[in-house]
């Protein structure tokens, strides 16, 4: 057989690609379920971390089920969209990705930690090298932060990537989003600086752009929930 023949080369390439494609799609189909489960567990762990609970992979599901009582979508007026309740990965609140084109509403997770009722709100923004995301847990007054969780795709290790560390995250607890009946978010500033009229936390030294990204993410993503938070705030007074 002549291996240099063009016809042979083309048929060889075509057959090879078809075999490989079949093999890969088969692998993907077989493992897909398990992969989705892992992604869901990872999301539950993030939500739990925003509630200041570090759950292992095995415990995450049980802890999540025990603490998160309800989840739903809210519209831009801050009212719950009927028929969107449910906490399982198949329900709209869990499966909604912020930033997708056909956003039906904004996800809210209601958790009960001891005596405290906490609302967990997802966030999404941009860091220096790629996307950053997070969860902010807000108490029932719609203003006081209970805890926070941040994640990133590719921030610089040791600098921007430090946003995931408890040293940074824990600063948010107890800070207030609403001042004088107005939504002001929480500022992330250079360590040592101060901001009048709104609560602030120290950014990461050497991770200025990531810190600014977190600042913008809080302002924008939590800002989208402004009506929802103001409603909660008004109900408390």
């Amino acid at each position, binding site marked *: 057989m002549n*291996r240099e023949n063009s016809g042979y080369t083309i048929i*060889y*390439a075509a057959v*090879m690609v078809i075999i490989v494609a079949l*093999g890969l799609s088969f692998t993907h189909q077989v*493992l897909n379920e398990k992969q989705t489960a892992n992604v869901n567990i*990872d999301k539950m762990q993030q939500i739990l971390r925003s509630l200041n609970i570090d759950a292992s*992979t095995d415990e995450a599901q049980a802890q999540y089920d025990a603490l998160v009582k309800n989840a739903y979508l809210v519209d831009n007026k801050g009212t719950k969209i009927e028929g969107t309740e449910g906490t399982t990965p198949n329900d709209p609140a869990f499966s909604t990705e912020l930033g997708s084109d056909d956003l039906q509403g904004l996800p809210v997770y209601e958790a009960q930690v001891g005596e405290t009722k906490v609302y967990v709100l997802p966030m999404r923004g941009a860091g220096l090298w790629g996307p950053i995301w997070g969860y902010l847990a807000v108490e029932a007054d719609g203003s006081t932060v209970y805890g926070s969780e941040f994640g990133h795709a590719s921030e610089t290790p040791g600098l921007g990537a430090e946003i995931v560390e408890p040293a940074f995250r824990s600063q948010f607890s107890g800070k207030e989003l609403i001042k004088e009946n107005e939504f002001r978010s929480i500022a992330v500033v250079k360590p040592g600086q101060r901001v009048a009229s709104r609560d602030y936390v120290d950014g990461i030294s050497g991770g200025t752009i990531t810190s600014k990204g977190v600042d913008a993410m809080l302002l924008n993503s939590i800002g989208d929930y402004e009506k929802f938070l103001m409603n909660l705030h008004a109900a408390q007074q």
Partner: protein
Amino acid sequence: MALSSKTKAVLLGPLSKNNPIIVQVLGICSALAVTSKLEPSLVMAIAVTIVTAFANMIISLLRKSIPNRIRIIVQLVVVASLVTIVSEVLKAYSYDVNKQLSVFVGLIVTNCILMGRLEAFALGNGPWPSFLDGIGNGLGYGWILVVVGFFRELLGSGTLMNFQVIPDALYEMGYENNGLMVLAPMALLLVGCIIWIHRANNKELQEKTN
């Protein structure tokens, strides 16, 4: 199982005298990037060993039928599909490690060791020696990763496989983790140290100076 001296050389040569990292200086990129902890280093070592071994074997089986003009393309397709399978399996069974390794699993495709072995060995040898050659080179790459990962995690984070090994008492006496160890440059220095020790022990590897 008795191995002939030739197969022994194929399997064990890459561990020392023919080591891909410290003698041929291939695959440095991923060696620096994934070794900040021991666990990803181990997983990476295993992944590369599996991919090299099977890619070598498959290419060796196909070597008499591959059209010469698309030789490299065929090699890439085989390597890329194996890497995709490894990556899918990691996502399903070792999600955390997969997150740490991030893009580097995918980048196994571009690991110079792989294409090097396919071109230099698999195209000219039978499936079984090629398989052993892949295992040998994968392990030769892997043990360097594990050694570097061991020292970087121990000195940089005070842990091994995420278990704390440096006692709290030492920290109270003022011991601090070396933050520099976590960054990639220290991996290069460590690899340099290994090369230094290795050459000092293997005089025939030393270049002649004028």
